């Protein structure tokens, strides 16, 4: 009797099998296989060749540059992201929806276009270019340009993560803190920050992953000077175009490893974060 009735959300077994195979097959062929191949190619000529390609000075310089750019861009975008999310979630003001749209801009504009914007502003023929050149300040084809491009492209990650979370949490706890005599800074530190910490960490991780991996915008402003302004993704392309496959795949493998570490941390956080969100929603 019971066997005849299926839950309304239960699908027949053949459909489940079909969808499952399709999804797993898709992920295996398009995502996992290339990742495995990256490591296989990197190790094609043995471990010592892989290691030699890694410690080659230009590759090391690329790793250092990528890490430096991320180390500057990520903390700045964390601060900007918190400030933006805080003002959008906790205050009412004119042009709020416009600000939210603006935050999404880097997601909708092609990174190459945003790189070109910096060329227009800081380039030799750009608005500030000649004046900056007079003072011997180099933005383009140098670290500042790479950092600026990275900041632009990775801006939305922290803010986007925090806005829905903070809107959902409302202003009640902050109002309570104010009536109890807390200053704005005390309220932020003791009430707001503990409530958003998991979401914030999650946003910072995503921001970091993208900052290390950004290609398009950085490619336009970097100038591709080997060992000086080449970030890891740019260096991979350069090595590959020079038929240095072991070198290209060795750096790519390192980049992939950084991505995998981020992914692992992200999964760990999601698991923690889900727990905590559930606790919050139990109210």
């Amino acid at each position: 009797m019971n066997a005849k009735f299926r839950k309304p959300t239960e699908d027949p077994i053949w459909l489940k099998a079909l969808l499952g195979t399709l999804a797993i097959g898709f992920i295996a062929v398009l995502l996992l296989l290339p990742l495995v191949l990256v490591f296989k190619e990197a190790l094609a000529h043995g471990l010592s060749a892989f290691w030699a390609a890694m410690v080659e000075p230009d590759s090391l310089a690329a790793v250092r540059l990528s890490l430096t750019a991320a180390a500057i861009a990520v903390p700045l975008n964390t601060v900007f992201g918190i400030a933006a999310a805080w003002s959008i979630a906790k205050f009412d003001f004119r042009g709020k929806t416009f600000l939210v749209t603006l935050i999404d801009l880097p997601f909708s504009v092609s990174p190459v276009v945003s790189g070109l914007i910096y060329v227009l502003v800081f380039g030799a023929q750009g608005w500030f270019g000649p004046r900056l050149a007079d003072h011997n300040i180099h933005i383009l084809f140098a670290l500042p340009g790479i950092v600026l491009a990275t900041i632009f492209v990775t801006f939305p990650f922290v803010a986007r993560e925090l806005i829905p979370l903070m809107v959902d949490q409302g202003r009640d706890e902050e109002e309570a803190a104010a009536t109890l005599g807390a200053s704005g800074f005390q309220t932020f530190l003791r009430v707001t920050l503990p409530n958003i910490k998991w979401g914030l960490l999650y946003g910072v991780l995503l921001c970091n992953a993208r900052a290390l991996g950004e290609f398009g915008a950085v490619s336009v402003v970097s100038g591709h000077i080997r060992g000086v302004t080449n970030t890891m993704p740019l260096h991979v392309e350069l090595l590959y175009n020079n038929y240095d496959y072991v070198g290209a795949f060795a750096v790519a493998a390192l980049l992939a490893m950084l991505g995998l570490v981020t992914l692992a941390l992200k999964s760990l956080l999601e698991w923690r974060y889900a727990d905590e969100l559930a606790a919050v929603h139990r109210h």
Partner: protein
Amino acid sequence: MSLTVDSVTKKFGRFPALNGASFIAPQGGFVSLLGPSGSGKTTLLRILGGLEFADSGSVRFADLNWLDMPARTRNAGFVFQQYALFKHMTVADNIAFGLRVRPRNTRPSKAAITSRVKELLDLVQLPGLEARYPSQLSGGQRQRVAVARALAIEPRMLLLDEPFGALDAKVRKELRADLRRIHDHTGVTTVFVTHDQEEAFAVADLVAVMKDGRIEQYGAPADVRRNPRTAFVSEFLSA
């Protein structure tokens, strides 16, 4: 030394929430703001707490120009309908919050804070729950903690925004009796917002019946009930 609210107005966009609300309450009094939703009672309470700003009018309390002071210096304890407890803190940390954020020279010692928390938990009849988290408490218990937290700062004024609105009838009755007892014990000037006339009349010394951002009638519960001054008041009270 009384609370004098004089012609307070407030607009949200084009919607007038308060149209010149005025009343005077004695120091240590217990006032209920009673009215249907949209009558401006919560807006008036939030203005008293410093969480909303009046467009015009004045409020004087204990010889202070109340509206010129920011929320954090008014020392007015506020109790919210949805509790607004700090979810990531224990009950004890919630209650101690207002004492811990004080500047060093007026902050009580650790031992003094601990004993004050214990005293307040006894007052709201939740002894021994220091280490619990808000999510481990029932609605009624949470609101008791919120009252204790508001009282911890030794407030000049206690403001309650439909504090029992989310609770069932039995718990509401217990809590309002306790609130009255706590008021009589501490003597703090209390303003209490509700849309439930039975609750307003049972707990307060003075009732202000509100409609469309104005106070329709203000007086002792018995007087208001006996002599409703406008058709609205008599209709609202008979509903």
